């Protein structure tokens, strides 16, 4: 039992000829000692000693010496590390005296990673000594009882078992063994090598060391790291200097379904191979931020149980005696820990997603382990009624216990059934946590409920469920509030938001919502004040009769069914319905909503198919007083030009508009460049004044429209309106806005079949469903490219109906009025040759509209009341077949 001949347990293990196992513990970037303790508990009994890194890669962490003390309190012997980067010879010697006094027994001497690689690259690196000088200094302190300066150490000096690092994979290769020899000469008694993946080079290195007789003088522990993922292995290969990861290992990881399992396998295989190399005295397992892999690797490599483990006793913590953990003893049911490879069950699926990125995976796994700990602890508490801490089982990820391997005469504290259940609970808990973090609250909630079925008193599940319920409630309330807000029910919305705030005082959505309600109320008041002197809507102006030039008799009355007319001809000769339908898009809410699209034939070919909805016509309202409208058009609206709300009202009430298009011309950066506030105000006024479906049409400036329409949406809330024009330059932003508020979009492309299709695909790619898209193919008025427009629209429609071109199966929105009324002819005064201005204008608009209806137009936007009347008449007639 006495190991007085040895300076440390590690030294004894090595000297007595056992194959040593050490591992590495990275202290936290905080003052949380529990992190270190937990890591120590995880590996207790599986290693002979654990290295505690000293601000590895120059990142500030809890000090190695302090962490080492914590680790030893948990019953694991520490190997403290000391670098030359952060302290000069004075600081180092002082700290080492302290470390010795605190009972630390092993010391690894390093030069240290350069500060450039850490989180304080601006720091002044000390490098007063290098690793070899450090070894030399400590050896003299220990053996000659002298400080570095030569002064005698009176009294007790340090008694470290001294180690150093060696990198067989750095250059120049031949000198690496020489340098190892220097370290041995300086005082190194054990060596921990850089991570070994390249066995060939490592064997060669060991051969050279052996030839130089070094393996007789020093214990060499091969560095082992289980690659946790393909990404980590690749990172080590390309970014960690001196780390040579062979392609074969990369490939294995890449192909592996379960990367962690493969990583552990690789580590075990390497251990088995290095064991065969003469002169290897042990392994140093560096499971970077994956300490929980260590027990598994040690077991699978057949290195468990550790020899002389009973010799290691936790260092008593005198100030807090009750915190002293139970001594690891043979009674501890270590053998119970199953030997089977971990079968990845429930948590694997959930965890797999989390493992997508290395960093987040480390975090998540650590959390998972903590959860397991907590789960097991609470289980034990429940089962055993507050059993002492010392019996806490070493958690195993998802490995089912093999009952038959347990020595039957042992009386375990936990029955296998109970353990099985504990495992299940732990698995479920981590799956639930993953689901919850992924935002799948319902799923998480159901998993937690399963936990409670297994174990009714599980505190974690209980509190998590309560939290989730609260979150769901908040979500629900917020949804409701937003909806009410959208509907304009400010009181209800306010009440809901306030409730949210009661539940979760910091919820920003609710705070914002309340703010918005306040704004809306203020705006509402303002609007009311403005509207009060209710602009007396002028009586309907009688438009001139256009019958002189446009003869539209009652089409319907003359109709004879085709079957009658084509009697005797087989139906399939004259009927060719399309193979698909144009999608239906609905705008507006309630009774007034209109639906466009829904046809499987060319326009009005009702004899061979169906048009579920007739084409519709919207009237146009501008956000500013129009400057260039000819008198023939302006006279119908000049009394309401100043107020878009009254204007829209007049359109609906006087001229029977079934929808309104608000054209935000004033926001055009090349015209008045009015801001989003203006647009939002206009839209709000119109939305208040009328209840017909709304189309909101920006100025056509891609960047500006994004701002404008976002603000409009902000004010309007989720209402079933149509917004546009969307072009490829702003499809992402407007697509997102539309999706967010449930709007449909006008995809505007420059008169080209392929571009139209492309834009629909782009919108679909950002997530806008096709039944929320209408196409504006860009149109020309009569005499201004009408035939070209016609031809492109016709080709789009033919492709949609007869060539299964799915992306084009959306309805057309056609802005007729804007195109017609900006033409020169519409504005020229009445004269003999061109006739009366107004009749001319009406004819231009109506003819353009009819032509584009025949080309496939589903939703027309028009201006002149008479032209609209004519157009509707024709639609009615054609639909009445």
């Amino acid at each position, binding site marked *: 039992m006495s190991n007085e001949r040895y300076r440390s347990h590690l030294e004894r293990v090595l000297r007595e000829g056992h194959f040593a196992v050490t591992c590495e513990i990275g202290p936290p970037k905080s003052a949380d000692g529990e992190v270190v303790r937990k890591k120590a508990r995880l590996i207790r009994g599986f290693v002979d000693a654990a290295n505690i890194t000293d601000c590895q890669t120059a990142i500030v962490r809890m000090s190695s010496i302090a962490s080492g003390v914590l680790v030893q309190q948990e019953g694991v012997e520490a190997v403290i590390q000391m670098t030359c*980067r952060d302290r000069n010879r004075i600081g180092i010697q002082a700290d080492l005296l302290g470390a010795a006094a605190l009972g630390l027994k092993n010391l690894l001497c390093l030069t240290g990673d*350069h500060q450039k690689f850490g989180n304080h690259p601006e720091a002044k690196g000390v*490098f007063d000594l290098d690793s070899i*000088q450090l070894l030399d200094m400590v050896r003299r302190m220990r053996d000659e009882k002298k400080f570095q300066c030569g002064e005698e150490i009176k009294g007790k000096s340090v008694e470290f078992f001294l180690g150093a*690092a060696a990198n067989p994979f*750095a250059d120049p290769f031949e000198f690496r063994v*020489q*340098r190892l020899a220097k370290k041995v000469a300086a005082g190194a008694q054990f060596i921990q090598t850089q991570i070994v993946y390249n066995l060939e080079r490592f064997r060669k290195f060991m051969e050279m060391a052996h030839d130089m007789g070094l393996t007789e003088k020093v214990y060499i522990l091969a560095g082992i790291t289980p690659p946790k993922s393909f990404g980590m292995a690749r990172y080590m290969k390309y970014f960690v200097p*001196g780390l040579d990861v062979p392609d074969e290992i990369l490939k294995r990881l890449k192909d592996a379904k379960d990367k962690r399992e493969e990583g552990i396998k690789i580590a075990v295989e390497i251990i088995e191979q290095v064991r065969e190399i003469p002169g290897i005295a042990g392994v140093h397992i560096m499971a970077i931020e994956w300490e929980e892999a260590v027990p598994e690797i040690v077991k699978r490599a057949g290195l468990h149980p550790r020899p002389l483990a009973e010799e290691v006793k936790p260092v008593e913590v005198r100030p807090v005696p009750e915190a002293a953990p139970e001594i690891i003893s043979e009674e501890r049911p270590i053998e119970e820990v199953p030997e089977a490879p971990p079968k990845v069950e429930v948590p694997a699926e959930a965890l797999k997603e989390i493992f997508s990125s290395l960093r987040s995976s480390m975090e998540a796994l650590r959390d998972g382990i903590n959860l397991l700990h907590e789960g097991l602890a609470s289980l034990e508490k429940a089962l055993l009624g507050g059993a002492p801490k010392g019996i806490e089982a070493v958690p195993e990820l998802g490995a089912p216990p093999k009952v038959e391997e347990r020595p039957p005469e042992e009386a375990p504290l936990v029955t296998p059934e109970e353990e099985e259940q504990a495992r299940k609970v732990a698995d479920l808990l981590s799956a639930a946590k993953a689901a919850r973090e992924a935002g799948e609250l319902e799923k998480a909630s159901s998993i937690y409920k399963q936990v409670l079925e297994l174990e009714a008193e599980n505190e974690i599940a209980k509190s998590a469920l309560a939290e989730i319920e609260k979150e769901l409630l908040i979500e629900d309330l917020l949804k409701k509030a937003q909806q009410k807000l959208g509907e304009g029910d400010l009181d209800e919305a306010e009440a809901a938001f306030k409730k949210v705030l009661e539940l979760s005082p910091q919820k920003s959505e609710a705070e914002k919502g309340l703010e918005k309600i306040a704004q809306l109320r203020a705006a509402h008041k303002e609007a009311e004040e403005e509207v009060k002197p209710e602009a007396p809507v002028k009586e309907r102006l009688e438009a001139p009769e256009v019958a002189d030039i446009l003869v539209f008799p009652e089409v319907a009355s003359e109709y004879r069914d085709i079957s009658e007319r084509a009697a005797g001809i087989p139906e399939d000769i004259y009927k060719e319905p399309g193979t698909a339908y144009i999608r239906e898009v609905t705008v507006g809410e309630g009774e007034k909503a209109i639906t466009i699209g829904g046809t499987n034939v060319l326009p009005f070919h009702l004899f061979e198919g169906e048009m579920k909805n007739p084409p519709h016509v919207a009237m146009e309202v501008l956000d500013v007083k129009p400057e260039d409208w000819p008198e023939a058009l302006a006279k119908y609206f000049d009394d309401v030009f100043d107020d878009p709300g009254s204007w829209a009202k007049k359109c609906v009430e006087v001229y029977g508009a079934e929808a309104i298009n608000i054209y935000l011309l004033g926001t055009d950066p090349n015209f008045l460049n009015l801001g989003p506030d203006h647009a939002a105000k206009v839209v709000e006024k119109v939305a208040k004044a009328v209840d017909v479906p709304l189309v909101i049409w920006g100025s056509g400036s891609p960047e500006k429209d994004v701002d404008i329409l976002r603000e409009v949406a902000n004010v309007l809330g989720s209402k079933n309106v149509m917004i546009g024009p969307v072009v490829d330059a702003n499809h992402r932003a407007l697509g997102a806005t539309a999706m967010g508020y449930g709007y449909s979009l006008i995809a505007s492309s420059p008169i080209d079949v392929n571009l139209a299709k492309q834009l629909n695909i782009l919108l679909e790619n950002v997530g806008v469903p096709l039944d929320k898209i209408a196409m504006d193919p860009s149109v020309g008025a009569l005499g201004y490219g009408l035939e070209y427009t016609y031809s492109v629209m016709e080709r789009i429609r033919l492709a949609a109906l007869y060539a299964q071109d799915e992306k084009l199966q959306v309805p057309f929105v056609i802005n007729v009025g804007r195109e017609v009324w900006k033409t020169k002819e519409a504005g020229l005064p009445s004269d003999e040759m061109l006739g009366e201005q107004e009749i001319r204008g009406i004819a231009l608009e109506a003819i353009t509209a009819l032509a584009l209806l025949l080309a496939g137009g589903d939703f027309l936007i028009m201006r002149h009341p008479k032209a609209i009347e004519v157009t509707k008449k024709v639609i009615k007639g054609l639909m009445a077949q």
Partner: protein
Amino acid sequence: MIIAERKPLARILQMIAPFERVAIIGCRGCVAICSAGGDREVEILAAALRLARKRAGRPLQTIEETFVRQCDPEYLTPLESLKEKVEAVVSLACGVGVNLAADLYPDLKIYPGVDTSFYGANPSLGQWEEKCRGCGDCIIDMTGGLCPIARCAKNLLNGPCGGSQGGKCEIRPDVPCVWHLIYERLKKRGELEKLTQIWPAKDWTPAGHGGPRERVRPDLQFNNNKK
């Protein structure tokens, strides 16, 4: 030679902000050779400062001069009369020159126009590399003439460390590992045994860690007529 580099103009403009008459004084020593503070740099700096100040609406008058050296008191004597003509001096000499002038002319407001960086060589035009750190205890007889104090990022004496890869330092891929170079050189010379000795901890006193360093030659002091 001593390598220096002009400070950012904004920084210099800030130093001289209160003044309307400033002398820009170069040095024909090291800083002229490394193109940081010779005649040409004085002219450019003066023009740039004047231009900047003119645009700022506070025109600046400059006197431009370049001394033979600024690290010897006798070459600094014109500063005495400059005191009358300008309110401040921007010196493009290395830190040595600025300090000496500040020692000798306590009334003169003198400001550094360059950052003094290292002792370097000029392996090719327009490029300077650090080769010495002035540590006061030259050991390059043992290292094939290559200095690990100046040229190793961790100034190791028992290198190379584990970050030496393919002859390069891990600190930056364009930096050669000086210990790799030392190894190759001594190997060629058959002097590798020099590297198998453990190099004891270095005495850093001569490197300046014992306070400002001085050198004295009594035989020369005898003829001293300075001061």
